[in-house]
Every structure is written in C-alpha cells, then in structure tokens.
C-alpha cells in the first residue's frame, strides 16, 4: 500500500506533477506577504510623522491579529478575550523594564512568556467543548481587565503606568518614531513569516482540518487537543508580542486600551480582512486603525459603526477583503487566459 518514493529527498516538488492549486496558493501567499509588508513600510513613510505613528499602532495590532487569525480563522477556536493577551504583554514588558530594570529585549521576552503562560492557562479550557470555551475566553478577558484595573500596587490601577523607558538595543536607544517603526515592522514581518510557514504543510493542514471538522480530524490521527493547545499558546504569545511594543508608542499604558472593545476590534479586524487569511489580518488591522482616524468627528459613533461594519461584512462580504482580492485576481487571470478556458 505504501507507494515507493519516486523522488529523492531534497529534489523538491520539481519532478512531481506540478501546478496543484494548493501549491499555487502557497506561492501566492509569499507574494502577498511581500506586497502587504511592502505597503506597510511604504505608506507610513510616505505620509509623514503621523503616518509613522499610525503605522506603529497598526503593526502592533497586526501582530496580535495574526495570532488571533491563527486561532480563530484557521483552527476555529474562537477567542473573545484576545485583548487580555496584549495587556499581559504590555504590562509585563513595561513592569519588567520599570520594576526589574531590564532592558527592552529581556523585558519583552518576559512579557511574551507571560502571555504564552496565559495562553497555556486558557488552553486548559479546551477540554470544554465549543460554546463553553468561547464564554470562558470572554471570562478570561474580563478577569485580566479587572486585575490590571484594580491591582493598583502592581499595575497602577486605572491610571496605569507612565514614563516607560524607551527601547535600548545594543547600546543605542531608539528615540525616534521612525526607529521604533522599523523595529516593530521587522517583528511583524518575522511573525508573519513564521505564521505563514506554520500554516503550510502538515501542521497547517492539521489546523485547517480541526477548524473544519474536529471529529474527522481526530479520526485520521490528528492529536486535536495537542494542536489546539499549540495554536492557542502561539496565538496568545503573538498577542503578547504586539502588546509588548504598545507602551513604546506613547510612553504610557492604562487599562482603557485593553477592554472588551479592543477584543471586539481584533475580531472585527480578522473578519473584515477575511477569516482564515493572514494578509487579511494585517489589512484588517490597517483598515480599523486608519479609518477611525479620518472619522474623528464621528468618534461617538465609532463602536456603532464598527458593529454595523461587522454585521454588514458578515452578510455581504463573508470572505473579507482578502476574499475579494482573491476573486479579483481569479477574474483577471481568467480573462487573461482567454475564452478557451
């Protein structure tokens, strides 16, 4: 039954009948990576200091959104408290810098580790099936928020932490927004690349299978609990990475940035971008950070508009921006190939 290997190891896919749609999709994903990251770098640079500030914000949320996308859009594990992990990353890093006197890198490492730890904690709840897990993630978000708001001795309570030291790398302190931007975008690209690689190949298929039908996935030998745990921990860690850089943007953090609204925001980001799409997560982050800036006078209506956007997107554009882009690309390709298709 086991087929003989016709291709020697290392020869790659070249000798095998090529052109399968999944291979095409994989190749396209890397092209999209370049395109999206290129835009992420170019646009803020082109629009001046405010653009760079926005770019930093977008990058932070994009990293967290990628983590959420892996959990929700691909593995089907809906998490309603993702802002909590950005909070753990933020506060963890800032506190490590301020209370332990660590420089940014080890401090961030601690913050991300803490987020990952939180992820492990939350992953214990995967023993609870479906619905229960979702509500438990919401509860997790509430618990973290109330802890950071009320544990004043540790976190400064509602006022939060101020005068957070800037990033120091190899003796140089990053004083300029531009420098910060470069650092965050590099991290974003790294996170994106690693996540993309994870979704391709055997592990990626396992995660997709879990997202599609858990019973069937388990029946073909996939260790569903193990993979769920992995994706949750990784996704939460990414949330922590995004959060670790947030304090650097303004020099202070407080609980207001990590409420239920922020968790919803992250969910809307991945929905608008397209559930299951990594570039969609980044695009969604960009849209949902930039658009409110230009609708400042409508700030009162912000959450209302977000809610309506979410509902409308789900009804009319269920595959999000990424889905639309895909359709466009397919349509162009089809018209190029001519009528004989």
């Amino acid at each position, binding site marked *: 039954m086991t087929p003989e290997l016709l291709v020697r190891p290392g020869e790659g896919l070249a000798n095998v009948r090529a052109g399968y749609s999944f291979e095409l999709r994989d190749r396209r994903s890397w092209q999209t990576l370049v395109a999206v990251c290129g835009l992420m770098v170019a646009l803020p640079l082109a629009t001046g200091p405010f653009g760079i500030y926005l770019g930093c914000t977008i990058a932070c949320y994009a990293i967290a959104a990628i983590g959420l996308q892996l959990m*929700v*859009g691909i593995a*089907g594990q*809906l998490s*309603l408290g993702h802002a909590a992990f950005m909070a753990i990353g933020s506060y963890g890093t800032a506190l490590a810098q301020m209370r332990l006197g660590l420089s940014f890198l080890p401090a961030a490492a601690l913050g991300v580790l803490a987020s990952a730890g939180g992820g492990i904690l939350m992953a*214990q*709840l995967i*023993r*609870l*099936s*479906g*619905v*229960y897990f*979702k*509500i*438990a993630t*919401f*509860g*997790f978000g*509430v*618990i973290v928020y*109330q*802890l950071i*708001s*009320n544990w004043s001795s540790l976190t400064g309570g509602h006022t939060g932490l101020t005068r957070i030291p800037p990033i120091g790398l190899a003796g140089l302190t990053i004083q300029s927004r531009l420098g910060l931007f470069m650092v965050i975008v590099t991290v974003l690209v790294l996170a994106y690349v690693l996540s993309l690689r994870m979704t391709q190949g055997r592990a990626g298929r396992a995660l997709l299978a879990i997202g599609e039908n858990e019973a069937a996935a388990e029946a073909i030998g996939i260790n569903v609990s193990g993979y769920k745990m992995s994706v949750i921990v990784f996704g939460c860690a990414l949330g922590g990475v995004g959060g670790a850089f947030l304090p650097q943007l303004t020099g202070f953090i407080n609980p207001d940035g990590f409420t239920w609204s922020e968790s*919803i925001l992250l*969910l*809307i980001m991945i*929905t608008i971008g397209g*559930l299951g799409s990594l570039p969609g997560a980044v695009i969604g982050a960009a849209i949902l950070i930039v658009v409110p800036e230009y609708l400042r006078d409508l700030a009162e*209506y912000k*959450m*209302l508009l*977000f*809610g*309506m956007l*979410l*509902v409308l997107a*789900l*009804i009319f554009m*269920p595959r999000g921006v990424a889905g639309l882009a895909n359709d466009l690309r397919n349509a162009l390709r089809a018209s190029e190939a001519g009528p004989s298709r």
Partner: protein
Amino acid sequence: MLSALISGLAIGCVYGLVAIGFSMVFRAMGLVNFAQGDILMLGAFFGFTILTWVPAMPYLLVLLGASLGAGVFGFFLERFLLRPAVRRHAGQTYLVLLTLGIGIVLSNGARLVWGANPVIYNIPLRHELVRFGDVALPMPYFYIVAGVVVILLLLQYIFTRTWVGLTLRAVADDPQSARLMGISVSNASTTAFVIACMLGAAAGVFYAPLFYVSFDMGLIGVKAFAAAVVGGFGNLPGAVVGGLVIGIAEAVGGVLIGTEYQDSIAFATMIVLLLIRPRGLLGKGVAA
C-alpha cells in the same frame, strides 16, 4: 453577609431568566446568541420609554409591554438577520461574530437613542421596603422571585401541554424527524427566539428598579451566559440553578474580596465549575 446572599439570590434569578433564553435558543437553533444581554438592556429601555409616556403605568403592565416589544423586535431580528445565516449552514464562528455584531449595534444604538447617561425607573416600587423584624428587603426582590417562579411555571405549562411547546421540544431533540412529521423547523426557531427575547426583556425590567438602566447593561447578559453554562448549556432548569449559583458566588465574593472584582469572580466561578464538571452542574448540558 446575609444581605449579600439575598441580593445574590435576587440577581441570580435575573441571570436565570436570561440564561433560560440562551439555552432555549441554543437548543432550538444551535445558535449561541451573544446579543441576549443587549436584549435585556433593550427590554429595560422599552420599559423606561413606556414609563416616560405613561408615568402611572402599573409595573406589571410595563413588564408586559416591554416583553411584547422585545418579542416583536426579536421576530424581525431572527427573520431577517439570523435565519438566512443558519439556513446557509454558517459555521459557529460566523454565527457568534454575527450575534456579537448585532449586540454591539444594539448597545451603541441604544446609547444614541436614550443617551449615554444611566436612567432610572421613577416609580414608587424603587423605594418600597418589606420588613422582617429588623431586616428590610427591597420590594423588587419579591417581584423578581415571584416573577421568575410564575414564568417558570408558565414555561413548564407551555412545554408540556401546548402544541407550541411540544413542537419546540421536538425540534430541539431531533430536527430531522420533526421536519418529517410536518413541523416547520424555521417557525419553531422563530418562536424560540421570540420567547427568549421576551424573557430577556422581562429580566431587564426586573433588574431596572433595583439599580438603573444604561446602554452597557449587556454585561449582565454575558454573566447570564456563565449561568447558563454552569447549569449545563441547553438545560433549562440548570439555567436557573446556574443563575443562582453565579449570583450568590458573585455577591459573596464581592463581600469577601471586593466589589470591583465581582465580574471576575462570576467568571472564575464558572471556569472552575466547568473544569470540575464539564457538562454543567446538573450534568445534562449539551456539548456543543
């Protein structure tokens, strides 16, 4: 401590009402309705509006009016937003996000319509007290408990003796066979949803005289979620039990640890209980 326990019981009943609505919708439609808490808020506001128009309206009529209003609202919501999605076999994630979005629109829409400031029911009921020796309990507590008991009896009657109730149970048990027997599953879903909305609104009206009404009351709904889960999701008596458990745990925890941590305590209780008994306290919860 005693007053904390009693208020926990009263709040628990409110949670229980909303939780029943959750469980009903879940059993009938397989849908986790994250907007249920905002329906509670809507019901409370409907009641407020009724009182604004007719300040002398008796409390029970306000209750009825608000419930009916919410029921009508729920009808349109289910018909035009939810049913198409369920029919398309939309995935769980999609449906949850949809109801989340609806909830956000409802709460923020309410903020636009009724303003961002909390409002109160300006009725004598707010101040009435019943005395037992040297303990004075707010009258609304009694309304709540009595109301919940009446509603439970009503639901019991509906589910065991009326055609509507039997159809709902049939659909919840086995939609395919129900369909084969000529039952319209989509009508049953609509009915379940409408009843759930009415329950949620009633809960809101029960809650209002005790505290206040504001657009962000929806959080209560999510705690009711925890209640439904604790009792066993999909299990109706369990929903009430769960509500009481959460209500009391929250009240007692608030006294012991601090009221600012009350929400956390509610959810932490839920998480701990679930880890011990994954199918809910009454053990007959549905695994989603």
